[in-house]
């Protein structure tokens, strides 16, 4: 069984408009891949299609996670199979405390009849919150409700650390973070890097990639990957902008 997240010729549309237009990408376990690309190029669409959002219709292509056909699975099944998406805009869930939410997510991973050990759960959660410099008061607060932009992003990373996915997609987790928070979050991600886990990091800024150093960098433009390179590609993009690549594309 191949230990990779494999995307082949993915086409997806929303309201009949095609956004992903034949996207190919492979993230093997143990690697960190970055995706960069201009606004509206389809980065968040890709992440939501992978997570299974129902607004997006997959019209062609294939996605497998460690050999399993992802498109055959329900949204929640994909998560339990090991896929995690840190949202660009995390939703607020009024009245549901962060702790209860995380508990329900972990409980959903246990076999029927088995109960989460509450003491162990809190211990682990507090340790991970400490690592992210999150105040304990966030356990009792409703999920993302009234959180600042940066607090929401940190909360996404806390969830990732608790759920320990095999593949994590981080959609612009750096936006809204101040420099200290960025370092803390990057450190959290780096500590989770392992041969057992793959990352897909979506970002607009080279800055994040100074802290989470990618193995591979892709450029997404108009629903397709138009260039793939090593971490130097990110520097080049920062210097020259996307025009450099898209002009090249037109020229070809």
């Amino acid at each position, binding site marked *: 069984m191949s230990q990779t997240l494999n995307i082949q010729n993915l086409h997806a549309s929303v309201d009949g408009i095609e956004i992903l237009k034949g996207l190919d990408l492979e993230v093997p376990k143990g690697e960190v891949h970055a995706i960069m690309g201009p606004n509206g190029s389809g980065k968040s669409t890709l992440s939501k299609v992978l997570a299974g959002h129902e607004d997006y219709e997959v019209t062609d292509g294939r996605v497998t996670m460690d050999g399993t056909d992802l498109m055959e699975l329900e949204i929640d099944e994909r998560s339990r199979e090991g896929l995690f998406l840190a*949202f660009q805009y995390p939703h607020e869930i009024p009245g549901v405390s962060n702790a209860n939410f995380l508990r329900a997510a972990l409980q959903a991973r246990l076999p029927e009849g088995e109960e989460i050990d509450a003491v162990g759960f809190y211990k682990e959660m507090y340790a991970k919150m400490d690592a992210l410099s999150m105040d304990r008061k966030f356990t009792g607060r409703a999920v993302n409700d009234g959180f600042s932009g940066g607090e929401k992003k940190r909360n996404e990373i806390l969830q990732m650390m608790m759920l320990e996915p095999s593949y994590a997609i981080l959609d612009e987790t750096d936006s809204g973070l101040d420099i200290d928070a960025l370092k803390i979050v990057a450190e959290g991600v780096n500590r989770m890097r392992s041969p057992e886990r793959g990352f897909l990091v979506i970002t607009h800024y080279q800055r994040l990639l100074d802290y989470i150093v990618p193995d591979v960098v892709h450029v997404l433009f108009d629903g397709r990957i138009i260039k793939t390179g090593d971490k130097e590609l990110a520097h080049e993009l920062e210097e020259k902008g996307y025009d450099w690549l898209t002009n090249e594309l037109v020229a070809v």
Partner: protein
Amino acid sequence: MAEENPVSWFAAPPVFDLGLELPDWYRQLQETSWQTFLTLPEPARTDQNWRFSDLKKVRFSELQAARPAENAEALVQRAKTERVEDFAAHFVFANNRLIHSEINELPAGAICLPLNEALVECGDLVKNHFMKEEGSLGGSKFSALHAAATLSGLFIHFPQGATCKLPILTHHFASGDFNCVFPHMLVVAEGQAEVTVLETFETAAEDEQTFFFANTDLIANNGANLQYVALQDESDHGPKHIQLNSSRVGRDANIKSAFVNLGAAWVRQEAIARMMEEGSDCQVFSANLANGTQEYDQRTLQSHEAQHTTSDLLFKNALYDQARTIFAGLIEVQSGSHHTDSYQTCRNLLGSDQAEANAMPGLEIDADQVKCSHGSTSGQISDEEIFYLQARGIPAEQARQIISLGFLNESIARLKGEAVQSYLFDRVERKFKSLT
């Protein structure tokens, strides 16, 4: 005509005699209240106060005073196993009779007695406050009936400065078809006193036609803090639950009251909050989960009767199947009650196309420098919220439950005391789990 012969409700006055020497004033009040009850018209939908109410759901006939419950010991056990762990005192009533009482700690000078005992031991004090609310939101016939019949429930009096962090608990059970219970609760908190009361209404068996005619009067004087919480967790078939509540808030005092409804076939709750003096503040919360053909009918009045008073009301309904809710809330800022802040919100979460949530917010202002707002909304759970939970591995159906529970929890979370909150939260969660 709505005024059919009201005697048809009862063949005889539903008074049970404990063989006690009760004060004359009380006996007289019972008698005049019974006469008032007989003369008052039946509730009718043509009355604005009963608009939208499905009175066909309730048949007031063949009613009777409840005979003693059979399984008292089992009921005491039930009340004990499920109560809040740390409490000041606990009283259990079944079919109007006290079947259990336990007192752990009460502040010096505090009175916390079953009504029948209080009438004997401190009758004059009871008399000063007993059934004094003259206003009505439509339930005056029920109020008269209650005054004619009640001998159960508590009289609580906290003198100046008496405070108790732990809640005083009561359980009221009813059993037996057409049996009526009349739970009474009268709480008086004098200056700077602090008290929390948590009442639970339950039925002994499923699907019995029991009737609760409850009355709750709360009085908080100078700087007192009073919290009252009612959990109605009766069987969801059969029982009819009527509860009339009044709150009188004095200078710089605060009353928080909450009504959580999970059971009963039909519920009618009326809550009148009077802000009487400067600095009076009242908060009223409700969290209701209705399914099947349950109907919850709630009417409220926030009456501002002095300057610089505040009030806030948050009612939340989650409805499934063919359930119905009615919320009618009036904010009244009386003449000269300047600098009033008053808010009122009713939110409905519709879990089915056939569920029906009616909201009638109202506002009457006769003062200046007033901040008031009222609003009601109805909606469904957003797909984005469900997606967010599902994306964390939680199955869709469970995600819906968690979100709905959170929706109701928003008003529970406004109460004081984690133990009280989680007691209510667990009960609401239990009902959600029973829905699927």
